[in-house]
């Protein structure tokens, strides 16, 4: 056994992009190896749950937990890693706010099954759906049970820090690793519990090089109707719904720099209680209309308000789920 502090990284319901983002710190990954003993990281090493169970509580110094809580298995591992870890970080959009898979909270699981196992290419005359327990000739096979809706990590366990982004940008990951190493060497202190780390404290707009003229708009456009956009002017003021005003800074406004709107992957800006509500306010402030009918016509330019305002944040919003998913 090594004397080095222990490090773990886990992925619950996730896409793997957070893991790739960690690998994209390139040579710096060797510093993780030099400063930590990696004890649990299913993509890179031992994936056995019972080894974690055997560890002393609190024996892992730092766990980066990515992915949302979709199944009972995810929830079980979240509880396990909470117990074993001194510092538990909700890493990336899925763990902090549910991310795009959180849009599944608009539908009950039964509906997800009815679609997934009956698509146009699926040949399923006997209406077979996966079963959490199924008898094959040789024995019983089991599958985890899907929860009625996706939860964020903090909805399941106590979380020490939140690191937003889908995925977190690699330079931010490198900075956080530097900080932790400095803390280990006694050269720095950890931020207060509950802090957002690896991101800025303002909005994407504050990092965006585009010019804002406080111009108001008469219509919203979908990006394919007006691309390419003027590369120097505010995207929202060109009429394309851009989530920058409600979204936390930290990515260096990556998407607006390449002509695309911010889609909000860094989550709510500092102090925002409900992401969608803040964004609606921001959009309302650029609409140039007084009459209700005119306002309504302009808002029709946003064809999917739920997706627009809660694309990444639904599972962590005040709404969390649709009523039909909740009731199931």
């Amino acid at each position, binding site marked *: 056994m090594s004397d080095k502090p222990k490090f773990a990284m886990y992925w619950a*319901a996730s*896409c*793997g*992009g957070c*893991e790739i*983002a960690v*690998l*994209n710190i390139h*040579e710096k*990954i060797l510093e993780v190896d030099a400063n930590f003993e*990696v004890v649990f990281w*299913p*993509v*890179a*090493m031992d*994936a*056995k749950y019972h080894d974690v169970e055997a560890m002393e509580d609190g024996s892992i110094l730092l766990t980066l937990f990515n992915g949302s809580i*979709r*199944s009972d298995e995810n929830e079980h591992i979240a509880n396990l890693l909470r117990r074993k870890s001194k510092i538990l970080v909700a890493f990336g959009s899925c763990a902090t706010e549910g991310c*795009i*898979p959180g*849009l*599944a909270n*608009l539908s009950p*699981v039964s509906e*997800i*099954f009815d*679609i*997934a196992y009956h698509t*146009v*290419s*699926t*040949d399923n005359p006997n209406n*077979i759906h*996966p*079963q959490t327990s199924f008898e094959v000739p*040789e*024995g019983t*096979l089991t*599958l*985890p049970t899907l929860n009625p809706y996706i939860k964020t990590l903090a909805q399941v366990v106590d979380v020490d820090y939140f690191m937003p982004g889908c*995925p977190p940008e690699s330079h931010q990951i490198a900075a956080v690793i530097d900080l932790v190493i400095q803390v280990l060497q006694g050269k720095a202190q950890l931020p207060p519990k509950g802090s957002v780390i690896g991101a800025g404290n303002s909005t994407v707009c504050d990092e965006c090089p585009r010019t804002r003229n406080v111009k108001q708009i008469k219509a919203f456009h*979908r*990006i*394919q*109707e*007006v*691309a*390419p*956009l003027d590369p120097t002017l505010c995207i929202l003021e060109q009429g394309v719904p851009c989530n920058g005003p409600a979204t936390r800074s930290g990515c260096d406004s*990556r*998407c607006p720099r*390449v*002509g*695309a709107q911010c*889609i909000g992957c860094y989550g709510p800006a500092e102090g925002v209680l409900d992401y969608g509500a803040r964004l609606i306010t921001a959009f309302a402030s650029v609409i140039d209309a007084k009459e209700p009918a005119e306002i309504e016509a302009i808002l029709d330019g946003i*064809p*999917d308000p739920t*997706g627009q305002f809660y*694309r990444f944040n639904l599972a962590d919003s005040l709404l969390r789920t649709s009523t039909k998913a909740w009731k199931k």
Partner: protein
Amino acid sequence: MTQRITIDPITRLEGHGKIEIFLDDKGDVANSYFQIPELRGFERFCVGRPVEEMPLLTNRICGVCPEAHHMAAAKAADAVYHVDPPRTAKLLRELLYMAFYATDHTTHFYALAGPDFIIGPDAPIAERNILGVIHKVGLEIGGKVIQMRKYGHTVVEMIGGRKVHPATSIPGGITKILSEDEREQIEEMGRWAIDFALFSLQAFKDLVLANKSYLDLILGDIYTHRTYYMGLVDANNKVNFYDGKVRVVDPDGGEFCKYEPKDYLNHIAEHVEPWTYLKFPYLKDVGWKGFVDGKDSGVYMATPLSRLNASDGMATPKAQEAYEELYATLGGKPVHQRLATHWARLVELLYAAEHWVELATDPEITSPNVHRVPTETPTEGVGIVEAPRGTLTHHYTTDERGILTKVNLIVGTTNNYAPIQMSTNKAARNLIKGGKATEGLLNMVEMAFRVYDPCFGCATHSLPGQMPLEITIRDKEGEVLDVIKQFVD
């Protein structure tokens, strides 16, 4: 006495994986099941979203190959709007895609497959990882591997905006206009990538092909299945990653079918089993006959080796030479030995690098004409690209405003689900006899699914590069008879 072996979780899949192996009274393998215990439901929750969101939403299916979903979604959205993007937009999308391919194939070869061949499948376990690879080939080469990944992600970020989850492809084209300065950098990195690919092929020849025991392993029966092979081809039947028709060859190598993306439903269907959340695609005209190979079974494979088998060659000169050498060495087309997939991956790496430079030096690549505004009413469309792990199909139907009413996705690794189940089953059957599981089984089972590079493959093994497996053999009462471990303390 019935025994049961559980490998849980295995890790190199999008999501999680689990293998259950049942033994019969004699202790031989009765059957095995490769289970996928996860479902996120994209086909449901993308309904109701505007179609231009799909290149952004479906990125999040897989963070290992978001570029593939981004491209398939953009192409499906083009089709929904009946819009043909300007040539420059297609060039830029494809350039991003080649840089991604070169990166992804590099990671898989060196970090994942490398340990088995460069270090050796039966070498001491402690050496069989990426650090062992670097020790064997030298730090300088380890640095090259990191450099290749860096270059690839730099290009992805330049054109797509972000290293992971690119943001720029939209219906009708792309939002990014490439500057001459960026183009020069991309060309330079591409030329470096060609040298790196050539170097990698040479390393494969020196370290693997020159070693008789490795060659025997590649050509042996344990990793062989005679199935159909699928891959995207251009008008000359050469391998293409971004565009073309899907071609399928039968186990004898004859063309079985060749179809436009829009016609995929005439050729592909999916089978559902109650013991796993993932579906099993198969060739409709042959039918689902269970987990068996041969001409009468609709099981097909979609991997680098499949793409080479399904094509008449590579569209770039150096890759074509490498393609010819592969088939000359392995005894002609098609090659059924799954381990040859690693070699095929390097041939594709060379093609990706060569085509990267071709695209970066195209006179139109820096044109500002990168988007065509769709004018037709959106309806329905299919987009297909080759993901590194298999043919990727996105099929959307929308209302007249372009709001999705139906979504169907057949994803890279999913194509290979039946072959993966068959390959792990075959490895298990060959290695577990009389209730005795040898330690060699661990790495051999690992190698059986590693050739398919199931979605998480490319990310793994970078550090420290070990595949943890633990096999527990229990009797009927659940009493532990034996535990075999690898990389498990």
